[in-house]
Each structure stands twice: as C-alpha cells, then as structure tokens.
C-alpha cells in the first residue's frame, strides 16, 4: 500500500531537511508502478510524474507528517486537481426539449445509463423522453422499452432505420407530449468506424444536444486515450460517465480520459439498477486510483 512504501523510502528524512531529488525520484518509481497497475495511460503517467517531481523537489519537510505522507499529499492533490476541481452537473439551456446524447464503445453501459439518467433527472422534477436510436443491436429497442417500463418513463422508438429521422420525430413527439428532455441512446460503435462516427456527427448537427456524454467502461485499460481522443475530436463531447465502478477496477481510465480531453467526468455508474448512479467526486477518484 503506497503510504507504507513511501515511509520506507523517506524514513531517513524525518522532521528536517528538504525533499531531495534522490528520494523523490525513488518514490516516483513507486508512483509509476501504482498508476500503471491502476490502468492510467503510460504517457499520461509520464507527464504526471514529471509535474509532481517539479512540485515536490526542494519543498521543506514538514514537521507534522512524515516526508512520505507529504509526498503522497502532493500526489493526491495533483491527481484530484487533474480530475477536476469541483463537480460539474448536467447543463440545461432554456431550450425545450433539452437533449442529452449518450455515445461510446460497444457494451460500455449506454442503454443502462440512459435509464439511470432518466431516473436522476426525473427526481429533479423533469419529464424525460428516452429515445431508442440503436437500430442495429438485436433487441436494443426492446431493451430500452423494458428499461423505460421499469422506471415509468416514456420511450420513443419506431421501426425505421434512419437514426436522424427517429430522433427528429422524437423531438416533435416530446414537444407534443410536454417532455422537457430527450435522452438519446445510440448504438455502441468503434471510434475507427468512419460510417458510424459520421452518424453521430449528423445526429449532433441535427439535434444540437446540450450534453453529449461519452460512456466509458471503468475497467478500460491503455486504449482509453485513443477512443476518448477520437470521440472528442469528432464530437467535442461535454462530459464522461464511467461505468461499472461498483467492481474493483481502479479506474485509471478516468485520469487518462480527463488528461487527454480535458472534459469533466460527470457521473459514475455503480451497479445495474437505475438508481445506481453517483455524481463524480474528484478527490474520491484520486484515492481509488492510488489504491
């Protein structure tokens, strides 16, 4: 556990002197190991270590805590700061309906998360309409219909295969039936699938969503930076939802995605039920990544 390892490295330094380059770089080797094991991207780890080293070297050793604890605090604060200083909630303009679009790779948890978001904003007094825009996956529309039924939320779907048309019609339906928010569930897709990425681009320009949320699996490893980078370059998404965080994945992908896109992580998915969603806490995530 990282604090014990650091105390070992720093035990010669108690109470006086400055944090030297030598013992900082020794502890940074340990931090590198911890972050890589937590699935933070290799290049993000390099940059992170470099900036922490700069901050730590030459600092006076404090009397109240061990030098190891002091370095950990620097690391923890740097990590939490990178995650985002505060919570960033959903953005709603005065437009009716407001639109939230969920995007991401196959199996990341979009359809389930659509149900969670609907529940979340329903609790805030809004009246969402779920939109079944995955016309590819077997029984995807049925899946969303069942989700809607479970949480007592209306679902718009039709038999067509034109995703933009479905969403435009959902928009009209929403206005007609006084739904103030559209939550669009899209099909999982690869960032390297040009046709499918183009579909999202068209959806964005036709619907002007207030929120485009990139739904990413919490256990994603090194490739998180590649997918996030392509999705953000294509869509300039507004936030990230990291799912399946009720498991024991350390969630280093959170730091990678944040470092590479600068976008806020807005929510964590913490289970399969529709109330199992949490607003993201930067400091808590930092502790989880550090193990």
């Amino acid at each position, binding site marked *: 556990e990282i604090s014990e390892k650091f105390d070992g490295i720093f035990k010669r330094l108690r109470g006086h002197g400055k944090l030297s380059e030598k013992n900082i770089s020794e502890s940074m080797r340990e931090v590198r*190991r911890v972050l*890589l*094991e*937590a*699935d933070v*991207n*290799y290049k993000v780890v390099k940059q992170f270590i470099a900036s922490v080293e700069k901050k730590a070297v030459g600092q006076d050793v404090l009397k109240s805590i061990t030098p190891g604890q002091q370095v950990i605090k620097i690391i923890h604060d740097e990590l939490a700061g990178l995650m985002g200083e505060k919570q960033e909630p959903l953005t709603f303009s005065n437009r009716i309906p407001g639109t939230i679009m969920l995007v991401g*790779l*196959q*199996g*990341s*948890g979009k*359809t389930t998360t659509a149900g969670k978001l609907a529940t979340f904003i329903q609790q805030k007094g809004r009246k969402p309409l779920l939109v079944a825009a995955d016309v*590819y*996956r*077997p*029984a*995807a529309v*049925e*899946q*969303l*219909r*069942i*989700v809607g039924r*479970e949480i007592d939320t209306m679902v718009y779907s039709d038999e067509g295969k034109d995703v933009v048309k479905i969403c435009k019609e959902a928009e009209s339906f929403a206005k007609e039936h006084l739904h103030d928010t559209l939550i669009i569930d899209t099909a999982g897709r*690869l*960032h*390297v699938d040009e046709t499918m990425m183009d579909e999202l681009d068209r959806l964005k320009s036709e619907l002007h969503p207030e929120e485009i949320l990139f739904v990413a*699996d919490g*256990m*994603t*490893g*090194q*490739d*998180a930076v*590649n*997918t996030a980078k392509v999705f953000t370059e294509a869509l300039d998404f507004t936030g990230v939802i990291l799912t*399946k965080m*009720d*498991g*024991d*994945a*350390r969630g*280093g*992908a959170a730091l990678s995605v944040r470092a590479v896109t600068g976008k806020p992580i807005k929510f964590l998915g913490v289970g*399969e039920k529709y109330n199992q969603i949490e607003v993201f806490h930067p400091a808590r995530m930092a502790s989880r990544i550090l193990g």
Partner: protein
Amino acid sequence: LKSSSRIDENTLDEIEELLILSDVGLDTTEHLIERLREKYKDGIIDNEEEVFNLFKAILAEELNSSVSANDPENVINTKPHVISVIGVNGTGKTTSIGKLAGRYQQKNYNVLLAAADTFRAAATEQLSIWGERVRSDIIKTSPGGDPAAVAFDAVNAAKARHKDILIIDTAGRLHTKSNLMQELQKIHRVLDKAMPGAPHEILLVIDANTGQNGLAQARTFMQAVGVTGIILTKLDGTAKGGIVFSIQKQLKVPVKYIGIGEKPDDLQRFDPGEFVEALFQ
C-alpha cells in the same frame, strides 16, 4: 568487429512502452523483457529488426499452449457437449455465443442455446434473434426466472432432441459480487447434476479493451467455477488485449477464440503468431 553483446537500451525501452500500451501490464512486461535479455546474451543480434523478430517468437511461444491438442472443435467426446459462457457485464458473451453457434452449425453440428440470463432487460430476446440468425433452437423462460432451472431444462432438451452442442448464455456479473458468483456456481452444479461432467467447456469472455482488472476477473472466475478457455472480443478496435499474457502466465488459461466484429462470421480461432504480429502494428 561489432561487439553487440548488449541489446540497445533504446530498443528495450521501445519494446517496454509497446507492451505496456498494449495492456500487458508492468510485471508481465518486465518478465518478458527479462526473457529477451536471457535469450540475447547467448548470442549476438546486430540490428533492431532481429531483436523484434526474436521477441515476437518469445511472445508467441508464451501463448502457444493456447493451441492445445484439445481443440474443442475437433474433440467432442460427449453428446451433448455443454459449453458455459461467462464473464463480466458487456464483454460480448451473447454475441460470441451467436457466432460460435453459427460456426458449429456450419460444421454440421446441431446446436441448442440456453437463455440463462434471466435478469438483464431483453437478454432472452437478444439471444433468440441470434438463434434465428444461425438456425439454432433456444431454451428460455420468462424474465426473472431461475437461471439454473433454464440450464437444467436445456440439458434435458439437448439430450431429448439429440443435440450435439449446448451453449449456455449467462448474465454478465462483476467478479466482486459474491452472490452472483454463487449463482454461477449453482448453475454449474445443476449442469453437472443434469449430466455428470457438464459443463465440458467453460469459456470466459474478456473484452480486449480491459486493463489489469482482466487478470482479477480471470482469477476470480477461475477460483469460482474453473475456466477452460478465453474468448477475447472487440479486437477489431484499437485495443490490443495484452492482458492475456498475464492470464496465460499466471493462470495457464489459453485463449480459444477472438471476436473481431458484430456479425456472425466475426469469430476466429486464436492464432498466437497473428496476435503477436497485431501487437506490433
């Protein structure tokens, strides 16, 4: 005289970065590079290309027990041959089962599917559509039903209908949820009860995007019910799936198939050489 008895450290750094970026993980990467150093000090390598070729051979060798003599597609000793497909949420179990059933049907095996995910919305409907696509019958029950009961009924149906292969689709479950792991153990106990020795194959489905948590998944499923092989999915993306090196090394579980897309033909037998080549692309 060129004294090349040391590998260029830059080349090794390059290799280390490549492996870590491929989700091989720090410990396993260090182990693999150590193997390279050892092989290297017994001989002389003059250029970078030779180092890479030697290294690819080492990597392929590490995975080679995957191509075991017990290839399930050639050795089917029982009728029905029962395959249980397990793994955490969203990895591609249901889709892989559809593809696998299609492969067996093309080889003239008669396949029965069991929709034992009675929990997730439209899981049964999803498998049913795959069943229609690849012309396999399906045993199912109503939502919220007992997955073990579906498994039991499916074995009996497979016997009664003289099916060659029975494939059980289970619900995605995080390995950290002990009640769900117990549910899986119960499904397997019931399979064994219905047909001693079943399930004959236990395939763990792992998403190639998964990082180091993949090893924890494999270890926990291995401890709970045993795993005979891995299906590594979504290799048509940019993730490399390097976690399989750790899984092979620490748990000796081989990769049997890879998923390379969402269509029926997008399942291939695992080929270590091709997998290693793809790592370096």
